[in-house]
């Protein structure tokens, strides 16, 4: 493992240290570039999907280099297939590692899901049963990723549309055990919690109270869509194609009130609106972060006095 000296002057010139604590950010969409370049104060950070920057060169890297010069960048992997039984794709892991080295992202994250099996890439975040066997596979894969990149990654809770009869663990117990065994941090996607809670008929608040909140390094917020299941009851789809739902904002407010200001991303990946619309969503998250920053600091002081 190569240690990067993050205190060296050369490193700091290439990668200015941008704090993201307490900031809200947005998905980086190339359609927004002109608007972002013209914006004096866009958002606290930008997050990119790692796979979009795994080509050898060309405009994607030119764009990301410029953005990284001016803003913090968070790297979000979508296709590592951490949750699958197959071994990780070594070539893909090597590409991921080189992106981490090239852009020194503030946060590196991946999903509790799988997308490749039997050499076929399915391009979706597919669900897994929560068993002793899958626990071992997930932990092995996270160990391998963290070893390769030489730093901690965050694991994101999934949104799911069905359940496995073979699951032995609740999702929160499974995630807590993965974090304990691997030392990974967690990315809490509040929209995913709401989507899964609706789809499977559990309480989102109960899920959050079972979730290891102290390990959260980042939060995701996004929009969802409503369909119906076989019984005609609501089935929510994690579509990332609209504004964050009111119910998700309420849950987010509760989480931030509980945990303090955690860097928060607005994801918007389809039917992408003009930049001011996405920015306004990030500003709404920032307002909640700012409101709780004051009371959170106050609460900590009171707690320490007591």
């Amino acid at each position, binding site marked *: 493992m190569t240690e990067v000296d993050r205190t060296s002057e050369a490193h700091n010139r290439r990668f200015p240290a941008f704090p993201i604590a307490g900031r809200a950010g947005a998905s980086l969409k190339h359609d927004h570039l002109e608007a972002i370049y013209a914006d004096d104060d866009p958002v606290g950070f930008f997050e990119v999907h790692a796979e979009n920057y795994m080509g*050898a060169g060309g405009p994607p890297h030119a764009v990301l280099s410029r953005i990284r010069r001016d803003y913090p960048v968070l790297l979000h992997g979508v296709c590592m297939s951490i949750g699958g039984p197959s071994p990780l*794709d070594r070539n893909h892991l090597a590409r991921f590692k080189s992106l981490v080295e090239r852009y020194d992202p503030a946060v590196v994250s991946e999903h509790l899901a799988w997308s490749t*099996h039997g050499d*076929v890439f*399915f391009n979706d975040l*597919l669900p897994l049963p929560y068993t002793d066997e*899958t626990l071992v596979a997930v932990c092995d894969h996270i160990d391998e990723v963290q070893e390769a990149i030489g730093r901690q990654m965050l694991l994101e809770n999934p949104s799911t*549309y*069905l359940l496995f009869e073979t699951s032995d663990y609740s999702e929160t117990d499974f995630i807590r055990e993965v974090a304990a065994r691997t030392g990974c941090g967690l990315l809490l996607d509040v929209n995913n919690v709401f989507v899964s809670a609706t789809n499977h008929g559990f309480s989102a608040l109960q899920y959050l109270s079972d979730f290891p909140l102290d390990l959260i390094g980042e939060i995701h917020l996004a929009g969802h869509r409503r369909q119906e299941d076989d019984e005609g009851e609501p089935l929510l789809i994690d579509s990332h194609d609209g504004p964050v739902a009111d119910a998700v904002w309420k849950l987010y407010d509760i989480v931030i009130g509980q945990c303090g200001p955690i860097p928060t991303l607005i994801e918007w990946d389809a039917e992408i609106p003009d930049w001011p619309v996405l920015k306004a969503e990030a500003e709404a998250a920032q307002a909640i972060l700012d409101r709780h920053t004051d009371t959170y600091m106050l609460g900590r002081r009171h707690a320490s006095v007591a």
Partner: protein
Amino acid sequence: MPPLPDGDTARGGSFAGVFAPPLLDPARPVPDLVTGPRAKAAVKRYAVYRNNVTVSLIEALADTFPAVQRIVGDAFFRDLARVYVRAEPPVSPLLFEYGHGFADFIDGFEHTRQLPWLGDVARVERAWLDAYHAADSAPLQAEALGAVAPEALASLVFTPHPALRILRSPWPAVTIFAANRQPGPVGRIEERDGEDALITRPELEVFVRKLPPGGAEFLTRLATGATLGEAAEHATGASPHFDLAANIAGMLEAGAFSGISVGVDRA
């Protein structure tokens, strides 16, 4: 669909080995290990994944092949792409690498026989995206060539720029490609002759040019290590209209190469 890896049988069948096959095969039933909460049905629930997989891959093809989509129309393209996605799903998690077999697939697709040039348009679009993501390299400057002594010119060897692609078509593929990748209306295309395409990306913008007679023979030879003398002789043999000076000027302007060195003239 490729066979499942041995690990599945070794483990007595993994959940993924059961969950995955019906995703791209609508004839297979919903895997019996999945359920809704409180034993609710999981048919529509599993269908969400089927839909996500198929639609997202169709959309990936639409992003890579917008001219093909425009030519055949959205509805036909989705049908064409759905058949392709099920026949040749991606094997790499990099979606911008998907669709290298799409042009061949179109060539063999019975419902596009009326559009025999469609496969070559897809080849140009696929090469466009390859050039877009190719490694960065400074293009060869005319001054570098100008500094070479005249007697050494014939033995020069050229380093192809990483983005360089050359395609030959018996159809006016470049004209059809260009007409369908610009935002305005597509007029009647009068060209009937075959066209050779030169695809380059000297800086950040991808360029697709129509090559002059003998140009494809010339550049293909140069790109595969022939000396300038050898490539010119070959091109002249292939086309009596081959104009060496114009082709050199054209390839420099396009940024087809990134360096020169003195090679051994085998002519």
